[in-house]
């Protein structure tokens, strides 16, 4: 049966509506919809004088402050300091956690020996280490990087250790049939099989590394985004605080997104319900 003229025009209008709807935006842009409209209304509210500019400067003022900092070279210095701390602390924490988890996950004796202590240490909120770290290592880079490493350590350790323990015994048996030794079974079966859980742990570790860099920089620093936060508070400049918060959000989201890309690629073999989940 031929569709009637009315039906055809209805269909065309529906299609046009669909094309115009925001759902048509590329998914990456879709996520910007909310922050962009919030920023816009905020800007408008500031323009109309509905908010106290000193406490809540509009996005344009925050942007101007950031631009000023960038021009003087200050911003690069702060960014570099924070990125260096997060980067080295994260790498250190992930490396130590991975080696330890590989050991406790595969050697039963080591697991019984070390795992209870590691789990007990995990129960201490990591910020509580700050006074001791300062006492031991002073207030310069070492305690900061160690604190960040501690933040990245536990999620990574848990991810890899539980991942290894969850590996199907039947796959390990295949390794035995083909003469893999202990190391061969770890490298060719346990590590790849535990990879998704490990990477999820590393992702959690990255999140905590960003959280702890603030804690570390708040405990006294002469540069870094955390220093900017304090600086803004001391000088009563909310634009600097907001600018630093914005940069934290941006960098945190960016590094997480990079890690997610790595995770998707490394775990494409998984037969999961939601792709990349």
């Amino acid at each position, binding site marked *: 049966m031929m569709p009637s003229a009315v039906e055809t025009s209805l269909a065309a209008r529906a299609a046009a509506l669909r094309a115009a709807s925001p759902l048509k935006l590329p998914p990456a842009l879709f996520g910007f919809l909310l922050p962009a409209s919030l920023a816009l209304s905020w800007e408008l509210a500031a323009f109309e004088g509905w908010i106290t500019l000193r406490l809540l400067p509009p996005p344009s003022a925050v942007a101007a402050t950031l631009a000023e900092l960038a021009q003087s070279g200050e911003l690069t210095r702060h960014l570099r300091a924070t990125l260096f701390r997060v980067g080295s602390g994260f790498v250190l924490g992930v490396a130590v956690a991975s080696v330890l988890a590989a050991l406790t996950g595969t050697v039963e004796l080591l697991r019984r020996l070390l795992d209870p202590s590691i789990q007990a240490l995990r129960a201490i909120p990591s910020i509580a280490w700050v006074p001791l770290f300062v006492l031991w290592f002073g207030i310069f880079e070492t305690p900061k990087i160690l604190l960040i490493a501690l933040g990245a350590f536990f999620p990574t350790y848990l991810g890899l250790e539980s991942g290894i323990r969850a590996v199907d015994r*039947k*796959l390990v048996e*295949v390794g035995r*049939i*083909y*003469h893999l030794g202990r190391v061969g079974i770890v490298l060719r079966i346990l590590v790849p*099989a535990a990879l998704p859980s490990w990477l999820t742990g590393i992702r959690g570790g990255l999140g905590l590394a960003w959280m702890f860099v603030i804690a570390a920089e708040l405990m006294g620093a002469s540069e870094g985004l955390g220093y900017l936060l304090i600086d803004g508070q001391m000088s009563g400049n909310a634009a600097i605080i907001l600018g630093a918060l914005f940069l934290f959000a941006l960098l945190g989201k960016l590094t997480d997104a990079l890690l997610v890309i790595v995770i998707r690629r490394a775990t*494409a073999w*998984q*037969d999961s319900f939601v792709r990349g989940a």
Partner: protein
Amino acid sequence: MLEITRLSKRYDNGTAALAGIDLVIDPGRIVAVVGPSGCGKSTLLRLLAGLERPSSGTIRLDGAPLEGPSPKIGVVFQEPRLMPWLDVLHNVAFGLPRRMPARARTAMALRAIARVGLSGFERALPKELSGGMAQRAALARALVTRPQLLLLDEPFSALDARLRARLHAEVLRIWAEDRPTLVLVTHDLDEAALLADLILVLSGPPGIVRAVYTNDQPRPRDPRSLSFQMLRARLLETLSACEHAAA
């Protein structure tokens, strides 16, 4: 020659799984092992594979005592047990020694893949394979070293009847190429009568050999033939006697 002498297995938890199996298998034979569930069939196969150690007794392959897994032995389990992160090619090559040159590994893996009829799927991941294809890949992995003893533990039991029939024909074709000794655990009496030269009926636990049937009907065998039906009937009778004894 595979020689099994007074082979017994008691697991660490005290379960007696096998109690004195004696058996000699000429090279190149197909042996089917049937018996009620829990009678020790898998235990026997795992002992032959070197995955478990006997509590007493010995297994000799060509006169040499078997201690642990050997490259002369290939194993296919009920589940394909493929590494989900490796494609078919690398799963099959997993069976080859690491120190082999990469080129030779690939060439041998490709040959094994062709032998099981999986050519064209070398790059497929296990999650992209059907049950039958995954089991073929597992068979290719077991065949890639050209083992002289091939152990199959209910390898077709998860597949539907038509696929199973096709794989029977293919296993026979592959077996005819280099004639490994083949030990097949199955609960399918038709499968046993169709494929095997020697059919072992176990009862247990603890597993003992209840009966041994030789089957010298020429291949390909016709399941509708009188001799086939008679063998099948005798198997069924022995098996239900075992089950009654166990119950």
